[in-house]
């Protein structure tokens, strides 16, 4: 369990003070994957560095497992850092060491005996899927493989928390997905709490349970990923959601389609954590004397179920349409009549 209270970071410079993080309050249950999203300059990079005090907070508390990190002495902080692992956008591996030696590095810091180091490194190489590459140097690896080494290195001392600093931002989409799968795998297998920062909504959508949206050093919106997706409050959040859902311009094309129909209704169906969205359409068609035509749709899978919108044209007698709408309203799918053609 991590709780962050009233956290502030002000950078002092000759040209005036810059507030990078302002009055931050977040609590993260154990075993969750917590995402922080924001554009560059929003303060998320500073935020993640405040958690292991790579940056010293100006004020506030960071409590990880009942221990206030901000109050630790230098020595205690070094010990605590072995429980708060971190992976980086640019991997930050030592080029002078092989994969095996890189993974062994944190174990050397923790003064683990050579024999145990060897054993642990073998386990980790297997865990992150790098078997066969253990004696390669970082320069001989692809970006995805380098991040796997970074993850193995981070896990070496069995940390409680994993901080991910834009861990997939330097990777191509396919590699990003494989690294995200690995993170989920670790989260589930080891029960590790993961805090990640990113500017890609895709990452949040794919693996996070909760999300905080940052802008100008503040968290402007926070909650379950699905809720934030469904009811984005702030303009910045809406822009992030549009990253995934496609922007609303696409739907302008709908009015053209709508005008081609001379009867029936156009419905907008919101799927929120719905797992049987396919069956809904066929169910309506079977139960009621109506014709359902899918006009436009985008459904995306999140950790808490499907989320998305489907726009359908429904035609039939007005009673049948009413009954069908009533039926949909009784499911978890939200329905909205966008235009009444008839």
């Amino acid at each position, binding site marked *: 369990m991590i709780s962050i209270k009233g956290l502030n970071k002000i950078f002092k410079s000759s040209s005036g003070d810059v507030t990078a993080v302002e009055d931050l309050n977040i609590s993260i249950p154990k075993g969750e994957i917590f995402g922080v999203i924001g554009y560059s300059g929003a303060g998320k990079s500073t935020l993640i560095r405040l958690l*292991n005090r*790579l940056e010293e907070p100006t004020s506030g508390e960071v409590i990880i497992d009942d221990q206030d990190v901000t109050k630790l002495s230098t020595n205690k*902080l*070094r*010990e*605590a*850092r*072995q429980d*708060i*692992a*971190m992976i*980086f956008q*640019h991997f*930050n*591996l*030592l*080029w*002078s*060491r092989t994969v095996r030696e890189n993974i062994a*590095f*944190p174990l*050397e*810091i*923790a003064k683990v005996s050579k024999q145990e180091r060897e054993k642990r490194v073998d386990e980790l190489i297997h865990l992150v899927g790098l078997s066969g590459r253990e004696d390669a*140097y*970082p*320069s001989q690896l692809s970006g995805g493989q380098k991040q796997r080494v970074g993850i193995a*290195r981070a896990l070496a*001392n069995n940390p409680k928390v994993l*901080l991910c600093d834009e861990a997939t931002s330097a990777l191509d989409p396919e590699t990003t997905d494989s690294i995200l799968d690995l993170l989920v795998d670790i989260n589930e297998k080891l029960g590790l709490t993961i805090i990640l920062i990113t500017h890609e909504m895709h990452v949040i959508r794919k693996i996070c349970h909760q999300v905080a949206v940052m802008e100008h050093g503040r968290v402007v919106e926070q909650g379950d990923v699905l809720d934030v997706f469904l009811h984005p409050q702030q303009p910045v959040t809406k822009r992030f959601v549009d990253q995934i859902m496609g922007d609303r311009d696409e739907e302008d094309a709908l009015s053209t389609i709508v005008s081609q129909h001379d009867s029936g209704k156009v419905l907008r169906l919101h799927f929120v954590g719905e797992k049987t969205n396919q069956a809904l359409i066929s169910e309506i068609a079977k139960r009621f004397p109506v014709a359902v035509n899918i006009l436009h749709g985008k459904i995306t899978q999140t950790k808490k179920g499907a989320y998305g919108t489907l726009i359908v044209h429904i035609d039939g007698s007005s009673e049948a349409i009413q009954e069908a709408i009533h039926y949909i309203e009784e499911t978890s799918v939200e329905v909205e009549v966008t235009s009444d053609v008839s």
Partner: protein
Amino acid sequence: MFHKLFPNARVEDLVEATKETFYMTGVSVLGTFIFGIILGLLLYLTAKEGLWANKVLNFIVATIVNISRAIPFIILIFLLFPFTDWLMGTIRGPNAALPALIIGAAPFYGRMVEIALKEVDKGVIEAAKAMGAKTSTIIFKVLLPESMPALVSGLTVTAIALISYTAMAGVIGAGGLGDLAYMKGFQLWDFDVVFLSTVLIVIIVFIFQFIGDFISNKLDKR
């Protein structure tokens, strides 16, 4: 044949002088490496935003380095005579040249070490900190290994400067090929010996350059 071409050269003298030059260069390279690394680390660590950021210490070290670099080597030798006499018990011979050689070259190499350390990826240092590494661990397991190829190629450049310093030290009686060339060439007008000494020094320079490049390339896994 050899005797006809170089009537005044004595093989024993040349061999002896070459040995002395190798000795002076070898020992002073080792000394320069150790003191240069210490100076370079101090400059790097005490700099602004360094691990031991300390304006005063940084200023002191930088001043010492700058002053000793400003003194011409030949003058430095004279300046150090009392110190050398106290330390080595003599001001003549190869051993007497060593303090001046090391004090002359270490600040120069120290600056090169500082530059090499500045090239180490900040992210890697940050990663080591995030793992809970102590400063000593960061120095010995991150900074020095990660900058090793640059440290070695800097040492190669310094070693070659040291070879020419040994020749200068030869003039005031340190021995070696510089001494030989000065004695025979300047005082006896035996230019064949001067020519042979030059050839031998050039060969020594090439050997050091080759070894330095080889080690630097071998270490570089980037």
